[in-house]
Structure formats: C-alpha cells, structure tokens
C-alpha cells in the first residue's frame, strides 16, 4: 500500500542522519526537508507538517544542550513520535472492530459525496458475514439518483438483506423503519448508508443529525477518499462536530494516492482508521492496524505488509 511508500521515504531521510559523520544544523535541515516534502506530497495537512518539523527541531536543539546524549537517536525518535501521534487517535481500533455477536450493532456510514460509502457498506457487511454475523443494509439515501438500486444490487450480490424505499423522501424515517425491521428479525449487524454531504450545506448536516438521532447508532463510520487533499481536515472536523464519528475507513487505496489527507481526519475526529478499501470489488477490503504501522515506523524495518488481509 501507498502509506508504505511514505514510510520508505522517511526511512531514507532518516538514514541521512545515520550516515552523517557529525550532525549539524545542515544535516538536520536536509533530512527534515526530505521528510517534509514526502509528507506534503502525500497530502498530509500543511499545518501538521509544519508542527512536526518545528517539534523535531526543538527536540534536536534541546539535545544539543544535554551532554552525552545520542543525538542521532533523539532525532530519530522525535520524528517517529511525531508521526505516530499523527497516525494514532488514542483509541484502540480493535475494540471498534470486534463487534459483539447476538446483539444488534447499528453502524451508520457518513461522508462526503462519492467517497465510497455505499460500496464500503456492503464490503463491511460481507466482511462480518464471513465472521458469522447476520448483517443487513438500510438505504437512507433518498437524494442520489439510483442510490437504492446501487445498494440493492450490491447487497444482492453478497446475499445480504436490504431495506429502502423509492417513494419515501425522508431519510430519517426510512432509516428508523429499516433499523426497527431488522432488529425484529434478529440481525446483529445493521448498516445504515446515508447520502453524501459536505459542511457547507447546513441542511444536509441537519439531516445527518436526524438520521443519527432516529437510529441511535452504536458506531458512526466516516468514509474518506484516500486521494483527498487539504480540505480533509475542515470536512472531517465538521462531521465530528455534528455526529459522534467513532472510526474512519479510507477508500480507493488501490489508486496512486498516498492517503496522507486522512491523517488529518484521524486527528480531527480522534478516530482511528479501521479498514481500507482497495478496489471496486466487494472483497477488496482490508483491516488497517495503526499500531502495526507505527510499529514498523519504530522498527524501521520492513515496510511491506503491515496490513492484515
């Protein structure tokens, strides 16, 4: 995956420090410049990148004063710490992924237009179906043309029951009915798909609040396109301010984009990335483990395969 490439670049930059005879301002600046450029090219938020740079410099300069400290180690650790704190939300993502069977888990999907919610909803249902859950899908998107057909066709492909309406126009009403219906039928995973929306349109956010209020989801997942740029933070924050976002799924990671925009979504929503989408097909969906990623960062060893398929 592409975050790997970012990891590699950072490793390379850090090796400049390893290989330098003495570590002066010049070496540090050159190393930081490479790291900063790699992060910016991966769409990490410009302000976050600046912060990382300043913090590493401060720690390196402080190390100058302390006698006998290994400056190489300090700089390396500073870089890794800063990156880890960008990637980790402080929430253990395992708890969010390990759903309890036999009780109705209501999961609501939200996100910007075209992010991949409808596709990911079914992937998510299929993932848990394999683990023995009884998933069901509710289409609470009454806005987008063909939205219900899309969900229906995906659900049918994966043999997952679905609920929706061609005539009801209030998504909150559909969502509530669908959830109630599937609870009665003892489904233990009820997934609610919603319309795409953006923070600039208040009425869309109000609608999202209503769907959430009517369905009382156990988890709200923010779906984000892996190629998103600098608008990521503002949008993610606005979603979080409106509903209780608890997890992030990053989509379209089979593309060329490096997924750095999502790091600001992690920061803004204080929610971990739990899965990534790696293609249009229903099985192109992987668990994401931030810890494993950070672990690799600390070990600076093998950058490949830190996601478990």
């Amino acid at each position: 995956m592409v975050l790997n490439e970012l990891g590699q670049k950072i490793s390379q930059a850090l090796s400049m420090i390893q290989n330098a005879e003495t570590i002066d301002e010049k070496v540090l600046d050159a190393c930081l410049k490479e790291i900063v450029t790699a992060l910016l090219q991966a769409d990490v938020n410009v302000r976050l990148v600046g912060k990382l740079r300043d913090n590493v410099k401060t720690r390196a300069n402080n190390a100058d004063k302390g006698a006998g400290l290994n400056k190489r180690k300090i700089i390396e650790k500073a870089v890794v710490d800063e990156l880890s704190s960008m990637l980790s939300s402080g929430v253990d993502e395992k708890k969010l992924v390990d759903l309890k069977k036999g009780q109705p888990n209501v999961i609501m999907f939200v996100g910007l237009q075209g992010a991949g919610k409808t596709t990911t909803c079914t992937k998510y249902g299929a993932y848990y179906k394999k683990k023995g859950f009884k998933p069901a899908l509710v289409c609470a998107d009454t806005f987008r043309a063909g939205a219900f057909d899309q969900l229906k066709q995906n659900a049918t492909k994966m043999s997952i029951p679905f609920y929706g309406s061609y005539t009801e126009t209030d998504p909150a009403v559909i969502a509530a009915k669908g959830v109630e219906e599937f609870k009665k039928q003892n489904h233990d995973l009820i997934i609610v798909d919603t319309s795409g929306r953006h923070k600039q349109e208040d009425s869309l956010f109000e609608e999202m609040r209503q769907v959430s209020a009517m369905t009382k989801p156990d988890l709200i997942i923010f779906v984000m396109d892996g190629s998103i740029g600098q608008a990521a933070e503002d949008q993610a924050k606005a979603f979080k301010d409106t509903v209780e976002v608890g997890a992030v799924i990053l989509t379209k990671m089979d593309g060329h984009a490096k997924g750095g925009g999502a790091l600001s979504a992690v920061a803004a929503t204080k929610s971990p990335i739990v899965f990534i989408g790696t293609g249009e097909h229903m099985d192109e969906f992987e668990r994401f483990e931030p810890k494993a990623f950070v672990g690799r960062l600390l070990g600076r060893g093998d950058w490949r395969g830190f996601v478990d398929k």
Partner: protein
Amino acid sequence: SFVRNITTSVVGTAALTREDIVPALQGLKKKLMERNVAEGIAEKVVESVAANLEGQRLGSFTRVSSAVRSAVESALHRILTPRRSIDILRDIALAKARGKPYTIVFVGVNGVGKSTNLAKIAYWLLQNDVSVMIAACDTFRSGAVEQLKTHCARLGVPLYERGYEKDPAKVAFEAQRAAERNHKDVLLVDTAGRMQDNEPLMRALSNLITVNSPDLVLFVGEALVGNDAVDQLTKFNQRLSDLATDAATAHTIDGILLTKFDTIDDKVGAALSMVYTSGAPIMFVGCGQTYVDLKRLNVKSVVRSLLK
C-alpha cells in the same frame, strides 16, 4: 532586527538576488499548498517566478515581498487562462450542419461526479435548444444505469442502455448510431470510474475512444483531490495516447470539468494542479448537486483565493 528588515525589504536599485527572494517565495509556496495546490506544482510555480525575478531591479521603495507576490499572481493568471478555448455550442452547430451528433465522453477516476455532471451538461444543452441523448457506458458499477435512467426521466432525454456487463465501447458505438437515427444534436457518453493505474480499465477506455472518435473528451476531476490530481491527469493523457491503436489519431483530454467546487471553501488549488499538468482548459465547474449547479471558472477569483 528592525533595521535589517528595512534594509533588506527595500532593495532600491540593486539587482535582486536569489537570497532576496527566497524567503518570500517559500512563504508563497506554503500558502499555495495550504490552498491544496500539489507540492510539485507549487514548487514549479515559485521556481519559475524566482528565475524570472532574479537579476531584476525594483523601483525604490518596492518591497521584495510585494514584487514576488505580484509576480506569482501574474504567473497564476497565465497558467489558469486557457490557451485554447472551445466553444461547445458553436462546435455542436457545426456538427449538426454535417448531420452528425456531437459526441462528448466523460472520463475520470471513481466517484468524482461524472454521471451527475453529465446530467447537468444535458440540462444546460436543453436550455440552449440542443437536443440530447445519453449513453449508459458505465456497464460495471451497481446502479449506474438506474442513476442515468432517473436523470433521463427527469430531463425528458432518451437513454441508450444495454444493461450491465456489456462492452462499453460497443454500447457507445450503437448509441452513436441511435443518436444519428433520432437526429439528436449531442450524445453524452457516461463511462465507469477507474483508477489511472488500472491497466485493463484504462485500455478499455482508450479503446472506447479510439473506436468512437468522440468530438470532445472531458476529464472530470474533483476539487477535493490533493496531490493525486497531477498523477490522474498525467496518466489519463498518457494512457489514452499510449494505448490507442494508432498513435497519430490518439485522442487525449480536451477539457476539464472540475466538480465539488462547493465543498472546498478557499482551498481551490486542485484547479491549478490540473491545468498546469494537462494544459487543458477548465471548461465547466460543478458547484452543487442540482442541474443548475454548473458554472464557468472565474480565473480572477481563483487566483485571489490562492493568494488570500
């Protein structure tokens, strides 16, 4: 210090050196990136401005920072101002005189807004008394055909569709014949979204374009995209020309439709990345989810947002 600030910011008649301009340029580069211009593009813009400014003499009391800023401003204007302009309505009229439907193919990565903005273009054409047919050549994504059916019903426009899993190039071919038979002025061809690195899908798209020789290939890109904008445009253009059966007649991107412009506030940088990379003009801007949300790019206001 205060004195140093004064003496370095007012250069007087001495020629500008790189040291004079670098700080101001770095500040502007950062600003461009904050506005979502791709890193590589921001770097190239400031680099070319630096090369131009170096050795120039400023009038007394002109601040280096304002000289740099206005140089960047005019560079941005230059980049964003289309080198070639396409008058679609005129070209449609010409095609009509020849008795051929004018064909527009919409291409781009997944979920950027191809189908929705195709419907907006249909609406705009109808407003201009141009008759339209739509071809459902996304035969892959669930609901893609029904999505267009809904739009066609609302717009009162015929849809040419053959359901799913058909060869899109063939559907487009048949749709062109149908549009001709039905004396439609324009055929709008929807295609499936695809990642620029997906070789088989890019090959299929190239084939669709080669077989059907459309009048216009519109690349649909979203304003939300970050650095990937550069790679998308580069690879779509590259793949379309590499994979064409006959390099001489290869048809690459003619214009850009920039969508979701209503979701990014002042982070308008994708517009710059896309135009800089492809040299293609931004012909339309999508700024909402209804039929009327289609605009022309206002270069001045984009430049203003970039530097604000």
